[in-house]
């Protein structure tokens, strides 16, 4: 490889860039806002998934014993729960404690003084790591000795799981759609920058440049558009997050947004990759139209 040629080639790309600065800035701006959209969407999606996961993890299974269950049966269940990999935590709630809680829940509207005896049984509260296994765990506990009933927010868990599935599908569809949109917008933009220079392309070919020779600087330019545009986008996203995230977390404390960890580096890398790939491909193909072979 002749170093002079590499220098010439890079110079070529650099000159294109500086001598059409306005046009290049326009293209980069378009790439940037498009990638911002993409990034925003990816980020919202991951955050929502994180929040949803945490909500689902808070779901509890209540395991009620028969009123006449023995302490041995209760200890047996404790062992079962301890042995179950799917169970992340559990607490024992004796019947006295249960009545207090019921009273608190109904906020005094039940006249507990009228009860001659505590009608509630002992119970376990169980948390499960993977929300989709809640129902399986509940079913397995139902058969244990001394257990009268196993209760959990069946509809809620079902709906949340369903919502999760649908959201996942919808968001994959949306990502694909957004990627297409980004590809269309960016490649249209790059196509227009190529169109604006169709005369130069024709001349280069008339002077004896091969199609590849003409194409390479344009493709590099497309890569640069993608790269710089994505970098600008990442900057915007970073600033945006720094400025707004804490406010949002403060406005909706119960979502515990700060606890939702979204890995930013992979998103950033994905966005860079997407920007560069679309830039390169669309230059490659748009210039094809103006190359007479």
């Amino acid at each position, binding site marked *: 490889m002749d170093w002079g040629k590499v220098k010439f080639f890079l110079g070529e790309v650099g000159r294109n860039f500086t001598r059409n600065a306005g046009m290049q800035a326009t293209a980069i701006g378009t790439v940037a806002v498009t990638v911002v959209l993409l990034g925003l969407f990816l980020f919202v999606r991951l955050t929502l998934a994180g929040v949803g996961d945490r909500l689902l993890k808070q779901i509890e299974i209540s395991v009620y014993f028969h009123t006449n269950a023995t302490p041995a049966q209760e200890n047996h269940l404790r062992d079962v729960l301890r042995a179950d990999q799917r169970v992340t935590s559990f607490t024992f709630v004796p019947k006295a404690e249960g009545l207090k809680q019921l009273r608190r829940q109904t906020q005094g509207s039940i006249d507990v003084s009228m009860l001659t005896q505590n009608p509630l049984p002992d119970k376990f509260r169980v948390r499960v790591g993977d929300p989709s296994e809640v129902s399986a765990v509940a079913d397995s506990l139902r058969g244990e000795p001394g257990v009268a009933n196993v209760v959990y927010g069946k509809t809620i868990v079902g709906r949340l799981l369903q919502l999760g599935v649908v959201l996942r599908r919808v968001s994959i569809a949306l990502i694909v759609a957004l990627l297409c949109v980004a590809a269309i917008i960016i490649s249209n933009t790059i196509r227009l920058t190529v169109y604006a220079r169709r005369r*130069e392309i024709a*001349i280069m070919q008339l002077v*004896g440049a091969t199609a590849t020779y003409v194409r390479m600087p344009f493709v590099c330019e497309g890569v640069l558009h993608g790269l710089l545009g994505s970098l600008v986008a990442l900057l915007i996203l970073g600033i945006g997050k720094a400025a707004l995230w804490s406010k949002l977390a403060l406005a909706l404390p119960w979502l515990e947004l700060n606890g939702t960890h979204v890995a930013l580096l992979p998103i950033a890398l994905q966005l860079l990759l997407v920007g560069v790939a679309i830039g390169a491909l669309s230059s490659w193909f748009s210039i094809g139209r103006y190359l007479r072979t």
Partner: protein
Amino acid sequence: MISIRNVSLTYPNGVRALDNVTLEIAKGDFLFLVGSSGTGKSSLLKLLYHDAIPSHGEIVVDGIRVDKLRGARVASLRRHLGVIFQDFKLLNDKTVWENVAFAMHVTGAHTREIERQVPRTLDLVGLAHKSRMFPSELSGGEQQRTAIARAIVNNPKLLLCDEPTGNLDPENTAEIMDLLLRINTKGTTVVVATHNQSVVDRMRKRVVRLEDGRIFTDEERGFYYLGLGQGQVLSG
């Protein structure tokens, strides 16, 4: 060097620019192509560098069937000849220097070679002082000389010149024609399409006159007008 046999050219819009043209040009020839405006001179040259493809007939340049070329072969052909385009066809976002250097770069020339050859050529056409200017900063004649420099910088074996002195004053014209003559004596075949009567009449080279897309006359050591010498004019 060039062999054009029974060539006709009809453009997509239906205009018949060339009509059964047959022409042989020997290696090392110097040939003037004359004829009134719109008569097919540029079209004939375009055929030789594959910018137009004949509807009929065949074209051989330096042993290559030009009308059959495709893709990278076309680029290769063009790198082996020099063309001065009637409308210059300079790259607007490149300086004079870069425009000329570009023609060398595409041939794969080494940087050292380019840096030696480009200034020499710009000097030949009297543009050394304008080498850092962009085409939009040049006068018409300076643009034309840039186009000339680009065409000759690679020492092509065949040089096609389409109205190379239309924007030049008589002194510059004489210098450029001297330059073309020198290039020709070094072995390059030169074809010049021109309207400049005094240039043709002074040089006494082969003159081919086209009229309405056909070859009308073909004279060795001819004049712009058949049999009329320098300084004489037709009618008034």
